[in-house]
Each structure stands twice: as structure tokens, then as C-alpha cells.
């Protein structure tokens, strides 16, 4: 809870690059990974995007891989289920548990590996976006689309207040911890409930204050912000094109190929 990914994005040098270019790269990676039928494409994407995030984005490698491992629990469980039960055909190996025969078929194993690879590829694209682009930069992109204004307004204010409340929550939690508020299950349950209540009431009052303060500054339902112009450099275009060609080539040559 102490670190959210936006913290890395704010200090990343890639922050000052063209937003549309970054979004194109990310969207391309995500779509190519999801629609490929061999695990190699998402793996290539994962390697490229991780390299870009760590090398160009200057995100420390240790925390980066720890964040990348965040979905591991959910994904591993689901992948194991898929490996055991998906598809028909020959079983590669099988054993009996409580009278049920459990077996891993080649179709199931392939599917599980594909899903694992896709998740890895997709998450690395997503992390590239979230570790190099602070949300502030994305708002101007959102404004250029046809998403309703009220939706964007609320997301902008929400963004601001997430940080305010996170700080309050961390302070309260710290104070509770030093008073042994989390010493066992019962007390920690009570502490979490008190923390959440306090947060709710405080956010309520904050919302009322925010309305008054914005109203007194002539808020009419539109927050305007500066959209900086950042031209795309030649080197970036070359790198992006190289990356696209590589992924498309792998996509073409590994159609239908699987590990087993």
C-alpha cells in the first residue's frame, strides 16, 4: 500500500515523451499478445516491454519484477486448473486422487502455457504504461476522445483524492500499529473497521469542502488543463517500427507452433 505505481511514473524520464506514441506501443503489444495463438509472441513482447521499462524508463529492476509477479497467485491457480481439465486427447501423465483420475493432456498444458505467456505479455505492456506515464498525462489524452466530460471530471478529482486518503489511511494505520492495534485477528479487524469509518466520514466532509471551494472559484463543470506538445523523435519512431516488425515476424513464423 505504501507504493503505488504512479510514484515510479512521476520520476520516469519517459514521462516527457509523446503520450500517443506510448499508447500505440502499449495497445499494439496488448492486442498482438491477446490474439496470438503461440506463446512465443507474448513472451517476445514481455521481454521487449520489460527491457524498455527498466532500461529506458529507469525503473529499478527489483521492484519491477516484484510488481510483475503480483498477479502470480491468481494466474498460477487458474493455469493449473486449465492444465488439468482443458481439452480432450491423450493424457501426458495422470494419477489418482480420492478415486478421481487427474491427468494433464497436451491440449490442456498448451493452453495453460499460452495463458501464462499472454498474461505475462499483457501485464508487461500494462506496467510499461503505468510505470512511465503518470495519470495526469493521460487526462489530456482522455479529453481528446469522446468520453463524456462528467466522467473525466470525476476521474480527475478522484485521482487527486486517492493520494489524500492514502496518506490519511497510512497515518492512521501507523498510529494504530504502534498502539498494538494489529496484534491479533480480533483487534486488527476492529482497527480496520475504525480506519475505514474514519476515512468515510473524512472523505464526506472533504467532498463538501471541495464543492464550496470550487464553487467560490467559479467552477462550471469544466477543469481545463495545459496539454503540452511533445513531438515524436526520429529515434523513437525507428525503435517502435523495429519492435513492431519483430513482433509481427514472430507472430507470422510461430503460427500454430506450441511448446509440446
Amino acid at each position: 500500500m505504501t507504493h503505488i505505481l504512479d510514484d515510479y511514473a512521476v520520476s520516469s524520464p519517459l514521462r516527457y515523451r509523446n503520450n500517443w506514441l506510448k499508447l500505440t506501443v502499449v495497445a499494439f503489444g496488448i492486442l498482438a499478445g491477446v490474439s496470438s495463438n503461440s506463446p512465443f509472441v507474448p513472451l517476445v513482447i514481455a521481454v521487449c516491454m520489460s527491457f524498455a521499462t527498466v532500461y529506458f524508463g529507469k525503473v529499478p529492476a527489483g521492484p519491477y519484477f516484484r510488481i510483475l509477479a503480483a498477479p502470480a497467485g491468481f494466474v498460477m491457480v487458474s493455469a493449473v486448473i486449465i492444465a488439468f481439465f482443458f481439452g480432450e486427447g491423450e493424457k501426458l501423465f495422470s494419477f489418482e486422487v480420492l478415486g478421481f483420475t487427474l491427468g494433464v493432456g497436451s491440449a490442456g498444458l498448451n493452453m495453460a502455457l499460452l495463458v501464462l505467456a499472454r498474461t505475462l505479455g499483457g501485464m508487461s505492456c500494462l506496467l510499461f504504461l503505468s510505470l512511465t506515464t503518470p495519470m495526469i498525462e493521460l487526462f489530456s489524452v482522455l479529453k481528446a476522445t469522446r468520453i463524456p466530460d462528467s466522467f473525466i471530471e470525476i476521474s480527475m478529482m478522484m485521482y487527486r483524492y486517492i493520494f489524500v486518503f492514502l496518506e490519511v489511511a497510512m497515518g492512521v494505520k501507523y498510529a494504530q500499529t504502534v498502539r498494538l492495534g494489529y496484534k491479533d485477528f480480533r483487534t486488527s479487524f476492529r482497527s480496520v473497521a475504525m480506519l475505514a469509518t474514519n476515512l468515510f466520514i473524512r472523505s464526506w466532509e472533504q467532498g463538501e469542502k471541495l464543492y464550496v471551494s470550487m464553487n467560490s472559484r467559479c467552477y462550471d463543470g469544466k477543469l481545463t488543463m495545459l496539454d503540452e506538445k511533445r513531438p515524436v523523435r526520429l529515434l523513437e519512431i525507428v525503435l517502435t517500427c523495429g519492435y513492431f516488425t519483430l513482433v509481427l515476424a514472430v507472430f507470422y513464423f510461430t503460427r500454430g507452433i506450441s511448446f509440446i
Partner: protein
Amino acid sequence: MHIFEGFLPSPWWQIWFAVSIPVIMYGIYQMNKLVSQRREIVPLLAVAGAFIFVMSSLKLPSVTGSSSHPTGTGMAAILFGPAVTSVLSVIVLLYQSLFLAHGGLTTLGANVFSMGIAGPFVAYAFYKMASKAGMNFYLNVFLATAIANWVTYVVTSLQLALAFPFEGSVFASFKMFALVFATTQVPLAIMEGALTALIMKYVVQIKGDVLVGLNVLTSSAATKLREAME
């Protein structure tokens, strides 16, 4: 329970977007109507969304030792109604995928459907019906939030099962996914229900008029609850 980026294969993530988008459009329409009547609702909705985000990033103490997060959407549905909750949950889920690496962009449609639409709608319907039937307020909140959490988890299992049927049978894979995730989700839902009921107790105690203003409680019910505490 978030489905992570890249997990849903091709026809399914588009399908879940197609299912979710009309509901979200309706939610935005409802919200715009609300905002044009009462402009002070914009900052309130924003802080409510931020509250849901922070709530969902709080770690609940868990019996099994694994960290578990409340969804917070059941509580939001009781407070703000399901249509507004669905819009807020889109933003919250987007932020969760960008800030916390929970969830993803292609799976956003599926996640919005399970956490922002199915769960809150059922929770809201249950809450309204039970409060009309005169159920105890805290018990009602407990059940409504726990049910929201369960509905979310059943829908997620169904989404996974539809995308990965076992030997052609969606039902078989649904049973399997539901069974395995039940080990974490069943206790988690009970925890979240109990936590939300306890939060409501404190809110009634300290600032009950907020709940009256949101039409969660009638003012007579709020006074009765407060008197019962003293």
C-alpha cells in the same frame, strides 16, 4: 477478484466489453441527470470513488494468511445505488490496473461486469427488499455486501469457465473454478460483510445524517438505531 491482463482469449474480452458498455452508458446518463439537478454531487462522487479505491487497497486481516482485499462495491451500491456505482467502478478498476497492477485493460470489460455491475445490482436489490421487509439494518448490510462479493466471484468463475470450457462442457469448468476460488472467496465475503456492517455502525453513531441524506435510512430508522446504541 480481478481477471488479469491477457487472461481472457479473443472473442470473450470483446463480448464482455459489449455487455458492459451499454450499462455504463446508462449509468453515465443517470449520473449526468443527477449532476444537472444537484451540482454539489460531482465532488461527492469523486471522493466516494477515491474512498472505494483506498478501501479496496486496504489489506483485510485474513485467517489463511494470504492478503485479501475487499471489493468495496457492495458498500458503494448500498450508499449510491447501482447505476452510479457501476460508473465509479469503471474508474476505480482502471486506476487499480494502472496503479496497483490489479486487473487489466482488455479484461476491463469483464471485470467491470462482475465487480461493478452484477455484484452491486444484486446487493442493491437485496438491500432494498430486505429493508422493506423490516430486516435488522446491520444484518441487512452484512448480507447485502457478502452477497455482492459472492455474486462477483460466481460471475468471475463463469467468465473463466466460458472462456476455457473443459471437454466442451462449460458447466464442468465452472464447477471447478468456483470450487477452487471458493476457498478464498467464501471467508473473504463474510469478512467484508462483517467489516461493512461494523463501518455502518460507526457511521450511524458519528454521522448518521449522511445516511439519511443518501436515502439509505429513513430519519426515524436512524434515530432508532442510535437510541438502541445508548
